[in-house]
């Protein structure tokens, strides 16, 4: 018998539910929305970073950058698996939705990235923000999601430290490099803060996701933890916070953002997949998916029916 929503809320704790549980559709849909968003973000982020494997300034950076992009695609695959286990959407449906512009993903990956100086904005700050969030999701109530997070967090530490290493190199480089890095930071900083979405009082999905244990921390708590860690880091490398959004330290020494200084109209345009450069990025990935369609076709038509009991030629 399907568990009722009150029972789900009562039992909601870290790694409480798995595919053997008959969960109500409301839970399965909320979990699917969250994990699909996460999976799509891994894929779109990897596509954004991929051109920089070629543009990396040294062989070490090239190796590390290609390893990182490979990891991110792998994270996408793990997450589509975790989402599929909820029985709401298949992997094919999620990939098709993403290609058609109906799949949602992280705001930062809707913006184009053009120069090497921009890479630490994703590889350090966005990945740092993502890792903050992912660390809390190791305690999510959907067990397959939590297990995926174990592997993701294991690998992600390398991404964040590598990203910081790129930033450290750039900020101790030539004046021109430092200036370009500062410019990239000013452009990306507001988007990076918006990574955590609107404040809790304006967040649409939080309450239910928190009640059923899918989400373990609120947007506000995550944003706070991120700012307290990463504002001092940015400053320690000589980056200056732009004038807007206004960011200041409160009486407790915690970093606070003037939320109204952020462009929320743009954020919601981005979130609805209506932001022009982002649409281009969605379409570019769709073309890549289409270009390898024949490979999928060959793989699927060659594969024997699932299960090792498929008849062999000699049987």
């Amino acid at each position, binding site marked *: 018998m399907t568990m009722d929503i009150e029972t789900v809320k009562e039992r909601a704790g870290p*790694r409480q539910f798995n595919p*053997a549980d008959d969960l109500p559709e409301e839970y399965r849909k909320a979990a699917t929305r969250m994990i699909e968003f996460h999976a799509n973000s891994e894929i779109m982020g990897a596509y954004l970073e991929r051109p920089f494997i070629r543009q990396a300034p040294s062989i070490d950076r090239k190796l590390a950058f290609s390893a990182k992009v490979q990891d991110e695609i792998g994270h996408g695959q793990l997450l589509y698996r975790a989402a599929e286990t909820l029985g709401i959407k298949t992997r094919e449906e999620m990939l098709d939705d993403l290609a058609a512009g109906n799949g949602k993903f992280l705001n930062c990956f809707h913006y184009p990235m053009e120069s090497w100086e921009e890479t630490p904005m994703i590889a350090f700050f966005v990945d740092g923000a993502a890792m903050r969030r*992912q660390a809390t999701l190791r305690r999510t109530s959907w067990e397959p999601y939590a297990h995926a997070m174990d592997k993701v967090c*294991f690998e*992600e530490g*390398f991404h964040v*430290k590598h990203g*910081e290493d790129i930033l450290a190199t750039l900020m101790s480089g030539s004046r021109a490099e430092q200036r370009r890095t500062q410019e990239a930071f000013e452009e990306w900083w507001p988007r990076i803060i918006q990574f955590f979405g609107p404040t809790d009082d304006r967040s649409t999905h939080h309450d239910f996701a928190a009640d059923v244990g899918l989400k373990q921390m609120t947007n506000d708590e995550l944003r706070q933890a991120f700012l307290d860690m990463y504002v001092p880091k940015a400053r320690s490398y000589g980056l200056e916070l732009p004038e807007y959004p206004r960011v200041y330290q409160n009486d407790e020494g915690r970093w606070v953002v003037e939320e109204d200084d952020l462009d929320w109209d743009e954020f919601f345009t981005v979130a609805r997949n209506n932001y022009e450069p982002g649409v281009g990025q969605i379409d570019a990935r769709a073309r890549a998916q289409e270009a390898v369609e024949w490979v999928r076709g060959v793989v699927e038509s060659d594969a024997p029916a699932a299960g090792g009991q498929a008849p062999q030629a000699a049987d």
Partner: protein
Amino acid sequence: MTRIWEVFRQAEKGEYHTHCGNVHAPDREMAKQFAAIQHGRRKPTNSIWVVPKDEVGEIDTDDVAFGGTTDKGYRWTTAYNLQTRQAEEVEESDAEQQDAEKRRRTA
């Protein structure tokens, strides 16, 4: 026909099912019962999976060179000696990676 069933035990809810042995059984029902008796009695057990051995695919070091043998230091957190304070979750990843590296070296 009696088959061999590989047994995977999960100690506590939310943890991983890890391989712990196998049982002989004529069918899935019996395999579950044998597995519960042989592998679920002494150690704390929340759940057990049984899988017919011939349904398990295997690939080993004779077939393929697995990762971790060539120097891919750039993939590890330990390659980036930043001398800065790291976020708690980055520290945690760092510790897990150091542990994995240690085990790889002693393997």
